[in-house]
């Protein structure tokens, strides 16, 4: 079995392998002495959790784990694991990196397509398996796109939180909570892949190259947020950014302006602990009590 870490990965290819176990999980509220010894403070806590579990042998059943170059934490964790394996400090499955390039020029598209072909070869997946997996994964995408809508929706945006604690705080106020947690982002297969092209690796490469997923995508955060607000019909937004966030936080001023201009009630929470955020949940309760949907 194989597993993955990070966003913007070739899920159609994973499906074609027939041995994809999904993204690795994490557990935060515990001591992580091994990770503390090797990993610096600016890493996301989930990275420390995975390193800790890796060293403890929790992932030994996997043959390989694919890390996303599209996320800086994930790609650095990949190098750390490779080095610690080389030094004999830990063992476990083979770390692989999937190198998606998301720049707007065709050089980046060509690179991403080449990397899809390389991973397919490494996992021994042929074109016919990929063709079938694309059709099946597109069907799953269409099903998931049927969003449930509520007249009173609050969108959680910014850093994808580790769990549904913020969503629970929203629902405790009688609102419907929208917006992904991190596990959703990592499991997101992205937009549909062109089926029946005769070159499934190129089709997957194109999809990943254009994908808005991943921190390396050169995107307009405010436009992306506006699309999420429209898709969920949100009338309130919680912009929640964690302490270790390095990418999305640069869009915060533009996001706030967009929401202000649109007249959408907004609560901004920055530098939050990426874990249980009781203060954040309390602030959400107070915020939503003052909002009329």
């Amino acid at each position, binding site marked *: 079995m194989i597993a993955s870490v990070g966003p913007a990965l070739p899920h159609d290819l994973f499906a074609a392998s027939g041995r994809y176990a999904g993204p690795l999980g994490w557990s935060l509220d515990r001591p992580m002495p091994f990770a503390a*010894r*090797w*990993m*610096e*403070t*600016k*890493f996301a806590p989930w990275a420390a959790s995975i390193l800790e579990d890796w060293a403890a042998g929790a992932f030994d059943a996997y043959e390989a784990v694919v890390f996303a*170059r599209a*996320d*800086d*934490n994930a*790609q*650095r964790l*990949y*190098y*750390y694991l*490779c*080095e*610690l394996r*080389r030094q004999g400090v830990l063992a476990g499955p083979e770390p692989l*990196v*999937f*190198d998606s*390039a998301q*720049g*707007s*020029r065709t*050089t*980046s598209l*060509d*690179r991403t397509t*080449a990397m899809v072909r390389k991973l397919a070869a490494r996992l021994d997946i042929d074109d016919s398996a990929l063709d079938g997996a694309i059709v099946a994964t597109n069907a799953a995408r269409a099903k998931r796109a049927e969003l449930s809508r509520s007249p009173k929706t609050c969108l959680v945006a910014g850093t994808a939180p580790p769990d549904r604690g913020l969503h629970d705080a929203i629902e405790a106020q009688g609102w419907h909570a929208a917006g992904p947690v991190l596990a959703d982002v990592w499991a997101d297969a992205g937009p549909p892949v062109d089926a029946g092209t005769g070159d499934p690796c190129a089709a997957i490469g194109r999809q990943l190259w254009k994908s808005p997923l991943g*921190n*390396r995508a*050169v995107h307009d*955060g405010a436009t992306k947020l506006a699309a999420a607000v429209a898709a969920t019909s949100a009338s309130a937004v919680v912009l929640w*950014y964690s*302490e*270790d966030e*390095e*990418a999305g*936080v*640069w*869009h*915060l*001023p533009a996001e*706030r302006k967009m929401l202000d201009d649109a007249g959408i009630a907004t609560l901004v929470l*920055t*530098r939050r602990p990426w874990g249980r955020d009781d203060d954040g949940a309390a602030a959400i309760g107070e915020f939503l009590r003052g909002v009329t949907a």
Partner: protein
Amino acid sequence: MSGAPIENNEHETGRRSHKMLASTAAANAFQKQFGADLKRRVVDDGEPYAIVQADTPHEIFHAMDIPIVTNQWWAAYISAKQLSGRYFDVMTKHGYPENACKYCSLGLACTLAADPATAPWGGLPKPAVLVARMTCDCIQHVFTQWAAALGSEFFPMEAPAWEHKDPGWFARSRTEWRSVYDPDRIALMVAEMRDLIALLENRTGKRFDEAKFQHLMAQINLQEGMIWEAAQAIGTARPCPVSIAEQMPNTMIPQWHRGSDWAVAHARRFRDEVMTRVDAGLGAAANEKIRLMWIGAGVWHDPGFYQALEETLGAVFVWSMYMPFAGPAYIRDLDGRPMEALASRICGMNEVLHLPPWMNGWMVSEAARCGIDAAIMLMPPDNRLSQSGNKITARSLEDAGVPVLVIDADMVDAKTWDHDAMVATVGRFLHEKRLA
């Protein structure tokens, strides 16, 4: 990644460093004049120019005679003018969280402040393009917004994953660069540089001259070869003839102008001065007892920090990455393929300094080469890229018998820096390790 020594300025928390070499004064004087010339070309004459990250192919711009303002150099310039605190406040007022990465965003902050009366040069005008490699999660966002604020265009370059991991890369990077840096990564960067050249030709009307570029690459090999020769002499000489406070400007300033006649001549002058001091047995400190390694970008707001313990403890910073990097990171056997050789220089420039196994492999080797007694490691609190690889490297050094002190501070944010407290911390560490 790398930073930018510029002419010294007294800072509210820092101390001036003292200089011994005529080369240092010459380099600083050149850079001061260069700053004035660059301002004239870019601001006064309105010549098309580019804003670029330090780890981008400056050689392309030099070969095309297009002026560049390097982001890290500009940040250091702002910092030395004691404006960093003010601009960080500007970012906060614009709604960015205080913990947003500071090193790469000081130039954006200066632009957003929109205060020509106090900004260096009155602020930067609209460039033809901004160029950065996407080595971290934040840089493309900073540069996209900076480009928008300046009404220009951002040209991102990929920083692809590197699967060929060679801890001994530094021993093979000159001759075996194709395999060390991965052929497919080199090919990607060459294709990107061709795109960049086309864009620059279109924006500036200047033409890329292959012959001029080849000559430039050969000149850079000559220049960096002399710096590397001096670095090797510094590693073996006892006492250390030149402190890092003088190594940095004499390496970095010519490196900003790499391949130019002045840069080659300066490298020669510096090497010769180092060799003369080695031959004469002259030391950076009067009584060298402890040889220190500095790991991280330079603390540009307090250059005197590096010499603060020379007199009292005989503790001399003999190593920082800037000078010894000249050899393995820059020198390439061209083999008639200068564009590929340049790509190999650029496509690992950041990674080898911040990721295992390259970072720890090189620094352990360098510590042994230079007879290092202890290392002081900078750990910027808000910058994953600059933190990255530090703990693994610290452990590797300690396993090799080199004790490491990690200090939490930022290379451009003077707010978190207290000269006396930092010097005292290093002093205590050296006593605890029974080195002092």
